[in-house]
């Protein structure tokens, strides 16, 4: 694992917070939540397509992280990312098992704000539906690359796979999305 100086500082800062929480300063756990919740939320939202589900997964993941905080070895951010990523995959498995339709209840209608025009809202809805149509592993790789902006090396580190395998997943995800969206974006 390649750890830059910035990452090393961050790991140390996280470890100090963890030590304080374990010493009884429960409120310091909010620092860890604040530090990583945005990136984790984007991941959960990209994977599930639902803001409500993403919030639930984050809440459950941080509670689990708190309960097992004494077991953290190394990077807290990588550890909690894996909890969230597994939470997303479990949710997707359950959704398949219960035969819920992606294009109804579980899909957000888009993340439009009032100032955005209707046309772009529709396009985002199409993008969300196309993402939902991808296999979870392809969606995960695409979201990590193009939404979270992670490098292939970082993705490989977090997912425990190779850079080559992840490149293949991202490339296949792009080509699948292009087939699904070609007409809308043409």
């Amino acid at each position, binding site marked *: 694992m390649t750890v830059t100086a910035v990452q090393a500082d961050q790991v140390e800062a996280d470890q100090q917070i963890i030590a304080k929480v*374990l*010493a*009884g300063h*429960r*409120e310091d756990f909010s620092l860890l*939540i604040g530090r990583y*919740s*945005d990136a984790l*939320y*984007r991941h959960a*939202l990209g994977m599930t397509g639902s*803001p409500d589900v993403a*919030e639930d997964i*984050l*809440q459950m993941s*941080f*509670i689990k992280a*708190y*309960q097992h*905080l*004494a*077991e953290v070895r190394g990077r807290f951010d990588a550890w909690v990312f894996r909890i969230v990523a597994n939470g997303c995959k479990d949710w997707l498995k359950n959704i398949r098992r219960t035969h819920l339709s*992606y*294009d109804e209840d579980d899909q957000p209608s888009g*993340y439009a704000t009032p100032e955005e025009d209707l046309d772009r809202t529709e*396009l*985002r809805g199409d993008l969300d*539906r*196309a993402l939902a*149509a*991808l*296999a*979870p*592993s*392809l969606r995960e*790789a695409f979201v990590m690359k*193009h*939404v*979270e*902006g992670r490098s*292939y090396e970082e993705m490989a580190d977090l997912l425990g796979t190779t850079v*080559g395998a992840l*490149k*293949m*997943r991202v*490339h*296949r995800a*792009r*080509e*699948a*999305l*292009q*087939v*699904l*969206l*070609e*007409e*809308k*974006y*043409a």
Partner: protein
Amino acid sequence: MHDDLTAREGHDETPRSRVPEPTKAGAVGRHRTTDGSRMADREVPIELTRTPDLVHAWLDGEIPESSVRGEEAMRHVEFWKRVDSDLEVKRQMHAPADLTDRIMAALPETTPSLVSPWWNRPIEMNPLAVAAAAAGLLALGTALGASLKR
């Protein structure tokens, strides 16, 4: 000529046909042949969906856009520029402002501690308990010895 990406969960990393089946999400567009005539969704020729390697390299940040040449490649570039403008919205998403407070309120009151397996836990006994256990074992041994002598 067709590939169901959803069915294989993406675990197979070998290069295969790159055209996904339409799925129930229903966002499948119609496809055109090179002469512009419409084709059925299941008859997408591979050459229309195969993204040039240079475009992948550009999307991966390995080469600048100026290195991507050719009409077909530029069509892909334009497509991904449009997608990217929508992805940018996703990149700007933040967790709800009150999420931290809600998580903190839902945390257990007890301080987390390392839970080790029972065989790895230290045994703590006070001297009185040790003396009582020793006396008990001695009494048991004496009783057993006496019964064996009979």
